[in-house]
Structure formats: structure tokens, C-alpha cells
């Protein structure tokens, strides 16, 4: 009977506090992850929205090609009408 009481004491005074301590630690860590994940989600959505203008790069590419072609034409004309150094 003494051993039984001793086991009860150990269970109540040692095991229960340790279990509660460990579970609370896991819960605190899990709760701390939540705002970080939500912040990352917000940033990802904002980053995706910022890249909406990326589609315009196709037109920029076309304009760059057209501009360089025009410059090349002007350069060819200048090469003809100007004397070399």
C-alpha cells in the first residue's frame, strides 16, 4: 500500500507536470508558427500581384527589337552619309 501511494505521488508531482510542460511547449511553438505563415502568405500574394506587370515584358521585348532595328537602320544610313574619321 505504501508503494501505491508512493506511485500516486510520483504520478501527480512528477509525471503530470512534465507532461503538461512538454505539451505546452509544443503548443507554444505551433502557435508561434501561425503568424509567420500568415505573414508569408500575405507577402507571397503581394509578390504575385507585383509580378502582374511581368506580362508587359513581352511588349517591352518587341519594342526593344523594333528600336534596335530602327537604330541599326539609322546607323547604316549614317555610315553611308558620313565620312570616316
Amino acid at each position: 500500500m505504501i508503494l501505491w501511494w508512493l506511485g500516486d505521488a510520483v504520478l501527480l508531482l512528477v509525471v503530470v507536470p512534465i507532461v503538461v510542460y512538454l505539451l505546452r511547449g509544443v503548443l507554444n511553438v505551433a502557435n508561434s508558427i501561425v503568424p509567420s505563415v500568415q505573414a508569408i502568405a500575405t507577402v507571397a500574394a503581394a509578390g504575385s500581384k507585383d509580378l502582374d506587370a511581368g506580362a508587359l515584358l513581352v511588349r517591352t521585348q518587341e519594342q526593344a527589337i523594333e528600336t534596335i532595328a530602327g537604330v541599326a537602320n539609322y546607323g547604316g544610313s549614317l555610315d553611308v552619309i558620313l565620312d570616316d574619321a
Partner: protein
Amino acid sequence: MSGYVAPVLAFAPAAGVMILAVALIVLALVYYLVSVIVALWKITKGLDEVIVGVSEIIAKSAPVNDIVTTINANLDAGVDALEGLLVKKAGIDDAVGLVDGMYPGAAAAGFRNYPESGAITPPRIGEVYTKGTLTLARLGREAPVAVANPADGPVLRNVEGGSLAARLLYPDRRQKRPKTLARSPVIGTDAPEQYEQRDDIGEPRKRMPAR
């Protein structure tokens, strides 16, 4: 029949305490594990949103690399062509000077396809100076730019005597510094002296204009 009743549920007090302790442990496990589950559910929901956003970023940025590479290739070709044309037409020295005139300090970097151009001392050519201005500067006449000496040589213009040099361009009478000079003629219908006095105004022409 005797009056003895067998106990249905009988246990020692120590056993009751143990049951209570186990119940406490189970309650703690339930409370904390449910809380962890809720937190993990929130994390999963947030990660789903993150995955959606990141997927959009990946999809939208996928063609950027190729497009920017193409744009850079075209711009490189343009720069190469313009550099080559400029050096061909103006010569490497004047080309460096022209670029440095428009973008001060750019000559230090030199041309991309002409590594030796970085070591050239750029002649002072500014796009704001016309050829006439530069000619005047070299002649030392009245051009403020002469002080800057764009020819990169000794200053030809005498700054202190510059006005005298300019006055020498006028007729001799002005060189004697007269107190008064002949006034400019008054012109107009009310002028005391009417030029081209014609007596044939209103009359038939005496001489027909030549054909």
C-alpha cells in the same frame, strides 16, 4: 438470507488517487493536443495560401529570364553597332570626348568593345558648342568658351584684353575713342531727311522695269 450486501464498486483510496492522476493526464493531453491540432490547421491553411501565391509567382516569372536575355542581347547588339559607328566616324579620341561631353565622367569607363579607350584622356568636346563657337574659341575672340580651352592646348584668348581685341575689328574711327559718333540716320515718313526722293510718284513710269 443474511443482510450482507456485496459492494459493487470498491477500491482502495490509493487507487482512486491514481485514477484521478491518470484522468488529469488524459485531460491535459486532450486539451493541449486539440490546441496543437487547431494551430496546425491554421498553419496548413496559411501554407495553402502561400503555395497559391508562390505558384503564381513561379508562373508569372517563368518567361522573364528568356525575355530579359533577349532584350539584353538586342541592346548589346545596338550598343556594339553604335560604338563601332561612333568610333569609325569620329575616331576613338573624339568619340571618347563626345561621350564624356554628354555624360561627364563616362570616359573613365571607356567603350565596351574598345578596352583601350578607358586610358584615353577625353578631349573637351561639348555638345553645346557649335563648330563656330569652337572656332572662335581657338581664335581667341569673345567666346567665353575660350577660357575653358576646348582645344586642350594653351589658351589663345587674352582674357584681360579680349574687349580691345574685339574693338580692333571695327573701323579706325572707333579706335580713337571719340566722345561722340555720328548718330544713326532717322528713317521714316517723318524723318527730316527723306531718302530716295522721287518726283515721279503718281506719274507714269519713265522707265519700265527690266524683264
